[in-house]
């Protein structure tokens, strides 16, 4: 780690440096405040009755705290043709995300293992081809994917969305595991082979038991991506299989009449809670996961 920061060492801290420290914390504090405002606004207003939002302002705390917006958002808000609230879509998002995350993590481990431990012609080309899939604008695959799902009888189903999320996650998961296994001590694998471990022996007994960090990163990354996914969800789902992002957008953007801001804010937070929890519980890994996709070192 580079010792970049200057002011911390030395016995005589000059007044100039102290002023510098104060300014540093002031700027950081101000920026932190800016970053927290939208979350703060959503939170406090989700506890206000609607009348208080219309007459008051978004910054003040509620004078009457109420849970009603949360109950409405969760259980009774009108979304599309039904008034079931977000509840069924919350479940849909889990039904999509959990199998898709498990399948993609397994695929990533397998691909990473093969691409780093076995040599074959065109391995780099295969890897580059998988990786390019990470960057394509998904608009270019929407029409043929809609037709393929139709042909497989998976249009508008949870299974269809699992399939789509797994396919377009292959690039990312392969990237994560490949970079991780590329740095794996080669001697361990070689000695296991000499002891007679075969293809699955090396994977099960040597690589996977030592893969906890990258498995965590992949799970967090994939879960966040799939939970937050909207384009595929809105294109390929039906009323009954919509993920939460699509339901939230329908609630907020296609409702007629009175705009129930408090319900919308509560709904937005409900939609954000799972990924926020994952992020708060494993912030360090989350950061690492974000960086694994772009920076190595």
């Amino acid at each position, binding site marked *: 780690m580079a010792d970049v920061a200057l002011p911390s060492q030395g016995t005589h801290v000059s007044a100039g440096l102290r002023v510098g420290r104060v300014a540093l914390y002031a700027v*950081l504090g101000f920026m932190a405040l800016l*970053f927290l405002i939208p979350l703060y*606004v959503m939170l406090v207003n989700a506890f206000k009755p609607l009348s208080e939002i219309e007459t008051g302002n978004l910054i003040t705390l509620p004078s009457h705290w109420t849970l009603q917006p949360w109950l409405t958002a969760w259980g009774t808000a009108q979304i599309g043709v039904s008034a079931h609230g977000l509840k069924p879509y919350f479940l849909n998002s889990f039904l999509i995300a959990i199998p898709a995350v498990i399948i993609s993590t397994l695929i990533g481990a397998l691909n990473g293992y093969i691409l780093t431990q076995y040599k074959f012609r065109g391995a780099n080309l295969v890897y580059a081809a998988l990786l390019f899939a990470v960057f394509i604008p998904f608009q270019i695959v929407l029409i043929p994917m809609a037709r393929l799902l139709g042909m497989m009888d998976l249009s508008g189903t949870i299974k269809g969305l699992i399939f789509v999320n797994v396919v377009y996650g292959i690039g990312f998961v392969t990237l994560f595991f490949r970079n991780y296994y590329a740095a794996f001590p080669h001697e361990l694998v070689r000695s296991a082979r000499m002891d007679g471990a075969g293809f699955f022996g090396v994977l099960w007994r040597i690589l996977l038991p030592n893969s906890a960090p990258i498995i965590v990163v992949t799970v967090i990354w994939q879960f966040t991506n799939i939970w937050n996914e909207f384009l595929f969800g809105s294109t390929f789902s039906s009323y009954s299989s919509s993920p939460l992002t699509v339901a939230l957008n329908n609630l907020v953007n296609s409702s007629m009449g009175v705009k129930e801001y408090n319900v919308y804010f509560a709904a937005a937070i409900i*939609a954000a809670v799972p990924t926020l929890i994952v992020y708060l519980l494993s*912030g360090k890994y989350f950061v690492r996961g*974000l960086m694994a996709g772009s920076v190595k070192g």
Partner: protein
Amino acid sequence: MKAGFLPKLLLSPSVLLVLACVYGFIAYTVYLSFTASQMLPNYEWVGLTNYKILLGLQNWWISVNNLWIFALLYIVISMGLGLFLAILIDQKIRAESVVRSIFLYPMALSFIVVGTAWKWLFDPGVGFEHVIRQLGFTSFSLRWVTESHLAIYCIVVAAIWQTTGFVMAMFLAGLRGIDAEPVNAARIDGARTWQIYVHVIIPQLAPVFASAFVVLVTMAIKSYDLVVALTSGGPANGSWLPSVFMYQYTFTRSEMGVGSASSVLMLLAVGLFVLPYLLSEVRRVKYG
């Protein structure tokens, strides 16, 4: 070890899926862009007609101009702000992980949630304008979201808010991996902190700049959810991006040929930035 039958067999489902669902689908969409497809695919070849129609559409040029504005501001500001925050955090501050988490949490939110939050912050009736007027500044006006040529700036602000923490994390990782030798040498020579950053440290971050740039360019070109949630593309079609254009023409206006052509141009734009980067990355990473 040389790959035998089993490793190749187990790799093949991934390869086949990607071949079919990425490269096959790209080929199919490119083909559709040369056909008379409207509501459904129609394989009658019409040559470059769809591209000519596309390039004559005002809606397309609104989308492209918006993309320029959006991409330029989004990339420059999130990179600048991200680097700035990373340098501040790198000054051995207290509670570093708390501060880092605060800048990063928007990254955990979906663009639909981000769009919902900012939609109301920009709403003149209840948002910033309303709040600041209540503070006594009764003539304060912030009506971007209601003006067709300003709405795109709302998208810019929300997108910067969502992504800056991620860019900061990338730069922070870069800063922590900096070679300490030249930094110490510069310090012994009496260089000031900012001089060390400008002349020694930031030049070493060139690879991070490249990575961040490629990620942000592709995110800008792909951006769709945020527009849908924040402005629904409006007012009128003032905040359309090419991604919104593609969706509208393909699925709402039944102009599948024109919609396909627009997605082909989007892919070309992404490819222009990603392919050189990808080739250098694949060559760079070695393995044992």
